[in-house]
């Protein structure tokens, strides 16, 4: 291939990515020049970057999928919706974390740049239509996250968590790469649509393909934090600074969903009979283990980590259904979950201050006496996580369970609901601690108005979204239809 004869690629579909990349570099450079007093400038610039990116993304939302870079990159409705969700989540993460990071002297340029590179990785992931793009996005995101966890250099737990995350992430990444290489070996292409066609040609009984699917599943399972690839989740959630936990617990879930859609559904939909069974196992064990082990946690970050594991099991239910409806409800679940998680960690962030992490369950004792408003917001968040109507969490659970039942897997729905009941215990325990126990301490809550306001919007949205739930589900279904391999 001669470089000179190659036509210049169409850059329009990738404009948001290019914008974020440019801005990340500018912030990196600016931060070197600006004095400490101007730190807020970087912060605001990061927010403006996200705002600009969302405007650029929204500009062509709803248009038919547009490929570029020789079909390696696609800009379709699925990628647009996931990207906008990511911007919104990350913007909230930044606002919630500002005071926390300032107090711990972590409010520095590296933080913003790493966050933005992570966002960039997720964006590339969401738009990947080629396995190299996909892997590149994944690694860009993962490396940023590893580094963010280690940002608090003087904290032993953070360093330990970062090391664990990195080692296990590398292992998982290697397995995913191994799976991808086998796919390449069988189909002779890295283009995802080409893989789908190759799989169809080779037939589903091909042994190498079977191996490939298993390794891909392991990679995806790690990203989601599904049992038994979940071991990193509690340690990293607990060890990382809460602001970083907040980041890890929200936007990357959308990215993980993107991998599933692009690789597993886009490329391996013909192997569904096989990966469905694997995912059933993963989902059931995740829901069971996540919900049961969360009960015996005394650290709320750790408890929420196990809750994440259980929620990812629920998300997998939608994938297992292997229908447009199922994928749509899984996407809705991913969106709703990331916003619930955002709010829950947001409350922990708001409660913590200089030298106090507010990450023990006891720290929530009697919160109602200290701040009625925050307690109410936390109550809504916990109800939503437990899946109590009329919160969005309930409708998300209902949608995936409905999809599973439509797919004929009634027993799976029954198991999921039973463990959701077990799970309700630890969510409601937080509510009980807040409302029925006496406060241990009288620390003032020093959170800023911006974070308080945003958090209120965040939590209340989970209830107020009620009239638009149908519309959101439709949007998710429409986004799913963008995947070419689906019938």
């Amino acid at each position, binding site marked *: 291939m001669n470089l000179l004869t190659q036509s210049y690629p169409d850059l329009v579909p990738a404009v948001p990515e290019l914008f974020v990349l440019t801005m990340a570099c500018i912030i990196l450079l600016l931060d070197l020049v600006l004095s400490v007093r101007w730190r807020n400038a970087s912060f605001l610039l990061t927010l403006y970057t996200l705002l600009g990116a969302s405007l650029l993304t929204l500009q062509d939302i709803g248009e038919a999928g547009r490929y570029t870079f020789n079909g390696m990159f696609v800009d379709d409705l699925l990628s647009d919706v996931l990207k906008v969700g990511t911007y919104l989540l990350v913007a909230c993460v930044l606002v919630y974390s500002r005071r926390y990071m300032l107090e711990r002297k972590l409010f520095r340029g590296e933080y913003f740049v790493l966050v933005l590179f992570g966002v960039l990785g997720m964006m590339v992931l969401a738009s990947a239509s080629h396995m190299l793009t996909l892997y590149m996005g994944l690694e860009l995101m993962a490396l940023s996250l590893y580094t963010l966890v280690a940002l608090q250099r003087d904290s032993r737990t953070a360093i330990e968590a970062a090391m664990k995350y990195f080692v296990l992430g590398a292992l998982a990444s290697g397995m995913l790469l191994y799976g991808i290489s086998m796919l390449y070996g069988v189909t002779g292409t890295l283009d995802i649509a080409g893989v789908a066609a190759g799989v169809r040609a080779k037939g589903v009984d091909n042994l190498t393909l079977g191996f490939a699917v298993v390794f891909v599943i392991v990679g995806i399972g790690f990203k989601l934090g599904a049992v038994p690839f979940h071991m990193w989740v509690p340690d990293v959630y607990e060890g990382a600074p809460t602001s970083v936990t907040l980041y890890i617990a929200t936007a990357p879930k959308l990215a993980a969903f993107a991998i599933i859609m692009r690789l597993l559904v886009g490329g391996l939909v013909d192997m569904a009979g096989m990966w469905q069974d694997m995912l059933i196992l993963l989902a059931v064990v995740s829901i069971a283990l996540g919900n049961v082990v969360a009960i015996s946690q005394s650290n709320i970050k750790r408890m929420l980590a196990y809750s994440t594991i259980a929620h990812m099991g629920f998300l997998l239910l939608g994938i297992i259904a292997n229908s447009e409806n199922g994928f749509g409800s899984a996407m809705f679940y991913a969106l709703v979950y990331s916003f619930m998680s955002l709010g829950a960690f947001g409350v922990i962030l708001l409660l913590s201050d200089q030298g106090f992490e507010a990450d023990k369950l006891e720290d929530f004792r009697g919160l109602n006496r200290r701040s009625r408003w925050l307690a109410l917001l936390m109550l809504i968040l916990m109800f939503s996580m437990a899946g109590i109507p009329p919160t969005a969490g309930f409708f998300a659970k209902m949608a995936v369970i409905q999809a599973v039942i439509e797919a004929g897997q009634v027993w799976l729905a029954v198991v999921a609901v039973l463990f959701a009941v*077990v799970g309700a215990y630890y969510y409601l325990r937080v509510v009980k601690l807040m409302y029925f126990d006496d406060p241990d301490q009288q620390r003032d809550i020093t959170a800023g108005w911006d974070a308080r306001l945003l958090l209120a919007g965040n939590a209340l949205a989970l209830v107020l979204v009620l009239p638009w739930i149908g519309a959101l589900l439709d949007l998710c279904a429409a986004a799913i239809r963008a995947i070419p391999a689906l019938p």
Partner: protein
Amino acid sequence: MQTVYLLVPLVCLVPAIIAGLFGWKIGRVATHLLAISGVALACGLSVWVFLDVLAGNEFNGTVYAWGVTGGIPLEMGFLIDRLTATMMVVVTFVSLMVHIYTVGYMREDPGYQRFFSYIALFTFAMLMLVMSNNFLQLFFGWEAVGLVSYLLIGFWFQKESAIAANLKAFLVNRVGDLGFLLGIALVLMHFGSLDYAAVFASAPHLAGQNVELFAGHGWDLMTVITILLFIGAMGKSAQVPLHVWLPDSMEGPTPISALIHAATMVTAGIYMVARMSPLFELSEVTLNVVMVIGSLTAFFMALVGLVQTDIKRVVAYSTLSQLGYMTVALGASAYSAAIFHLATHAFFKALLFLAAGSVIIALHHQQDMRKMGGLRRAMPWTWLTAWIGTLALVGIPPFAGFFSKDAIIEAVQLSQLGASGIALVAVTAGVFVTSLYSFRLLFLVFHGRTRMDEKTRDHAQESPWVVTLPLVLLAIPSVIVGFLYLEPMVFGNFFGEAIQVAPAHDVLGRLAEEYHGKRGSDLLLAFLWHGVQGLPFLFAVAGLIVAWFLYLEKPDLPGVIHKRLGFFSRILEHKYGFDEFNRFVFAGGARRLGGLLWKIGDVRIIDGGLVNGSARLVGWVSAAVRQVQSGFVYHYAFAMIIGLFVLLTLFLKL
């Protein structure tokens, strides 16, 4: 006109809500003015509706559709016919009297506004009950009056006995209501509708149909339904053996005894059976049962009245006995006579209760008749009206009770049902007993030597006008409704289509034939002449004479008789041991069973095994799995590799 129908209950409900929620704010005077004007308006409108219905404008329709569930519409509807209109007038009139009376009776009570709120609410609920055109609303009204009754029996909630009494009323009514509810459910199941008109229209087609309650045992459907409905009536209208709550309900304030536990609520069962006459007519078994239960109540409860010393309890047992008379009339298919007696009884029994209440306030809440006597001079109005009420109750012509009671006795005489023999004996003998206890009360309270202490005697004086005015206003209908309405209600087809009687049971039709061709005053005179010659009248007079002899001429004699007939009087004093039986078998049994279930079922199996056991299991598993999370990164990696191998071995088809 529909607006008027709707207004009648609403003008009672609105004051109830305002008095209940804002009574503390608007004060006593505003509260009673509001409540009284509301009920007065309802009474006026009821009279208007009554006249309108007499002019031929009946109504049956839905006012408000509440919802549809399982294809069954749940609706608020009114059925306004002569039966309903009669009940409306009786209810609102007595209620109005009681409202006025309350102003005087409850003057010093701290719960004044609450009381008005309750009685206005009661009037609303009772109106909803009688105006209903479907079973659902009937049940709503039924339960609502039960609720208010419960609240009012326990009105003085600091009093231990009042709380026990309202609990008792609640529990006993539960038994009746369960039967009632089952009856309604059966109706719904077999008729597919809760609307009166639809049910009554298809009732003849379902007559003779069998229903299998237990495998292999067929029961006549109509009998089952009507017996169940009648169990409801037994609870509400206090028929043996579900009567035990009514005497205790006298723990409530006296106006309540008059309004709820004598004149209106307790007659809801009678009204319901009369309303359901198209169903009851289809089962002779039920009619016999009704008659037997009624006669037992009529006679034996009257006997208990003889030994009571509490003035209100005497009247309460008298109420039980009179309800028994009405039930007997229902059993004899003389529904019109039952409603006629219901109406006259409402007036004279409310009058007697209010008169008793007047005495009670004059004596500063002294209720023991042994400590009264000679009040005639101090309380002339009360005395006079009490006499009128008593004469009406006993059935001395031309007072109202004579006509209605005589009509019942005549009807029973003409009935050809198997139980009519016992019933006739019971109701006829009952007249003597009624007369005896009534005049005993009258003589002990108002005549003879006074047995009060000096202080009470000096303070005893006539009650204020708000108390005596209702007495006078109630005394008037106690005298006149009898001869005014005898002809239309008993001989004429007053209720028209509302009450249906099978030709074989039409005792009132046969009675009318005996007075064939007589109308107006001729008929009245004939009926009077016939009555005066009959046994019941002789018994009534005999009762008067015996009472006079025992309690005025030889006041020491009752004590001697009491001792001689120790066994019988002990039975009567223990009220045949119903309370003891219930306490031992039902209350004790329930407690023992409950204790057993609690200790074994609840504590051991449910709490110990299911609840705590499952929680402990989850907690144990949780703690165990937590140990797997060792913190060593090689353990984690190992878990991932294991996971990989599990997936490979399980799902790879080699």
